[in-house]
């Protein structure tokens, strides 16, 4: 981890004025792309992700088809303008990896058995990156899948946590992510109480890890409520 002389927690408050356990201001909107079956725009503070879902639709080439189930394809992509220095377009090693783990985080939440030989495509574009992009992307994908009418076991909630100056913080922003001791992105099925994504970058004791996971799951209720609100809002007007 990088080191900085700047204090990131001053008098119990973080650089953007949040308390350690606070989640940034969330914005969620469903059905933003008319051409897609389902879509969602999600932002946590400055981090913004746009997800679109197509399908289930016939899968080509045919040799990729599975005769007993449908498949999920997930593409996580950062826009060139999403970070301070221009990101080279095209999938990098990091994006390919995030696409894979995110797909595996969403798969347990879907019923694709009734759609043999088909594929559900999820494309998530990070429009602005300021930390915790993969969990923001998962939130957007979860809403877009629900909006598309793909049968689901549960919504998927993503949230990150970490250790900063010996304190547990929730929903890290870019700067905190760079200088923290460790960070853990988590994807969670709230009503099934199942964790589908858990990664860690940094060094923690087992006790610290457990505590962070517990705190993140506790804070994820707010994210879940926001997702439900966004879905219901589309049909309440």
């Amino acid at each position, binding site marked *: 981890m990088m080191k900085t002389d700047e204090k990131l927690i001053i008098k119990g408050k973080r650089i953007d004025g949040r308390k350690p356990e606070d989640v940034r201001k969330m914005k969620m909107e469903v059905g933003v792309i008319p051409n897609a079956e389902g879509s969602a725009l999600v932002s946590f503070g400055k981090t913004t992700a746009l997800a679109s879902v197509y399908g289930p639709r016939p899968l080509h080439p045919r040799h990729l088809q599975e005769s007993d189930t449908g498949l999920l394809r997930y593409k996580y992509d950062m826009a060139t303008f999403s970070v301070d220095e221009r990101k080279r377009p095209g999938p990098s090693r990091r994006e390919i990896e995030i696409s894979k783990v995110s797909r595996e985080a969403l798969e347990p939440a879907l019923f694709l058995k009734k*759609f043999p*030989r*088909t594929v559900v495509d999820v494309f998530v574009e990070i429009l602005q990156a300021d930390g915790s992009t993969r969990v923001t992307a998962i939130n957007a994908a979860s809403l877009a899948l*629900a909006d598309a*009418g793909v*049968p689901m*076991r549960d919504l998927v909630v993503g949230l990150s946590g970490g250790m900063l100056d010996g304190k547990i913080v929730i929903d890290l922003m870019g700067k905190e992510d760079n200088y923290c001791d460790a960070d853990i992105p988590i994807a969670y099925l709230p009503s099934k109480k199942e964790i589908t994504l858990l990664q860690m970058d940094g060094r923690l004791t087992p006790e610290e890890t457990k505590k962070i996971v517990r705190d993140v799951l506790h804070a994820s209720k707010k994210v879940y409520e926001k997702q439900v609100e966004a879905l*219901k809002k589309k049909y309440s007007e």
Partner: protein
Amino acid sequence: MEDDNNDEGKVREITIPGELIGSEKTFKGGYGTYTENGKVFSKFVGILRKKNDYVSVIPLSGVYIPQINDDVIGIVIDVQKFGWTVDINSPWEGFLSLSEGVDEYVDLKKVRMTKYFDLGDIIYTQVLSSRGSDVQLSMESPISRKLRGGTIVKITPNKVPRLIGKKGSMVNMIKDKTGTNIRIGQNGLVWVSGDDISKAVKAIKMVEEKSHVYGLTEEVAEFLG
């Protein structure tokens, strides 16, 4: 799909995927639900329906799932040796075999398949069978035919009953007032031809957008003038 005529005035309860509907002991889960550990959950963002101890969820969005005897509109995307592959706006392509597509004896040595249906042709057809990913189509039904000219509009398949209206009231009104001919496929494809196509298309889009509004028929009538 059943029509929503006994819901007038009631608040429609919207469910979310994974939402707990009740225990398996008190409820029997129907379409749009699943059971896990003795509890019934919703699978979709949809409207909750309860009839005695039977619960189901009608999804508010989603792709078209082919069902037997549905009249659908398809576009021929491939001409094969003994039939045609048809895009029916569903997760699977439909297959129209030669014997189901043509009523007469066809000598393939003399006649080319494209004489009957060619690439890009729009057909009003019926689902003969649907097993997993295998969807067979048929033109045997008297209302099945090739649709010439006109345009295709795509709407969400779940909103097809709304566009048809009670006993076809909505679509008949649009037909009369715009002087168009309209065919609606259960798969969400709508074929429009005739005089004022653009106005009819606007009316169809309006029905799709405002499908949950009560008194929509009057609103559309006002728009059509």
